[in-house]
């Protein structure tokens, strides 16, 4: 009986620790709500640490097919995501135009993009560290960067 209890406790601890490890970088949140009839409603929450982890399993040749525009942007993204973490929470861009509102901000170590309009609401939040990790991996594996 004690052995079963120990096994159960060990498994529970492992699951909890795995959960803590998986969610250590927070979550990537994507919410899309189209206001038209039959419009899409997409709500995705993905553990941020899972994305760079998953990239390790992508065959290397796929990275070499990155378009030139992406290659140009990667060094920029590396710098921006590394630097933005040094600053306090800030709204970098805020555009209001009648019923439309676009906001790009950093909130708690995440880059958050909010688009609110009559047609749709889009909210995207990605930890800066995750973007930085992904960009580093892409840059390391893509030729000519």
């Amino acid at each position, binding site marked *: 009986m004690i052995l079963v209890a120990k096994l159960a406790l060990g498994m529970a601890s492992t699951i909890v620790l795995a959960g803590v490890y998986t969610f250590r970088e927070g979550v990537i949140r994507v919410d899309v709500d189209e206001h038209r009839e039959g419009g899409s409603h997409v709500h995705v929450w993905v553990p941020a640490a899972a994305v760079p982890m998953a990239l390790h399993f992508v065959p290397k040749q796929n990275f070499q097919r990155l378009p030139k525009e992406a290659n140009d942007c990667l060094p920029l993204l590396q710098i921006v995501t590394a630097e933005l973490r040094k600053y306090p929470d800030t709204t*970098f861009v805020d555009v209001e135009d009648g019923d439309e509102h676009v906001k790009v901000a950093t909130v708690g170590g995440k880059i958050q993009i909010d688009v609110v309009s009559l047609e749709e609401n889009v909210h995207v939040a990605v930890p800066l560290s995750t973007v930085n990790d992904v960009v580093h991996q892409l840059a390391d594996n893509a030729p000519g960067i």
Partner: protein
Amino acid sequence: MQAPSFRFTGPALLSVTALLTSPAAIFAQAATPSTSSSSGSDRWLHVRVISTESKGETVRVNVPLELAEKVLPAINHDRLHNGKVKFNDSDMNGFDLKIILDALRSSKDGEFVTVQSTENDVRVAKQNGYMLVHVTEKHAPSSKDGKPVERNQVDVKVPMKVVDALFSAGKDELDITAALRALSAHGDTELVTVKSDDNTVRVWLDSKNISD
């Protein structure tokens, strides 16, 4: 019979700790403000555009100068390379900017250019280490006395050190990164103000990461 309970204490404590800390780890980023701190010496460039048209568009941009300094050299597009913008003589319509700048730098404070016409008033001056440009655009007379009506006003106030840094690269280059560096060493400054019937534009520099 104390041994079994002790054997449970370790894993149990570990589990409880993990359970208690897991929500904290998951939601830490959402609940707490950024752990990184911004030193008070950070300089922020703010741009604010307010349109008074029917929809009332408002644009607010806040950029840390240090970030711009680091990002600019990484952009290589068109005429912008390594934080410098190339221009050629044809862009300048025969004006030698270097000579004009040298003249401006070595001269005493005063008004250099004053143009008054029915369409525009332009004033370029140097005052207390700043280069000042003031442009007033006039529209066709609408008042009873027949005088042109002032419609758009543009005020530019740039520290001379920034102008020097801007032209420090070479004859046909503008060193934007050097200009930003010089700007970051400067105090709070109102750089550009545009007032027109439809829009108000303001570009300024301070140490706050929010616009007023």
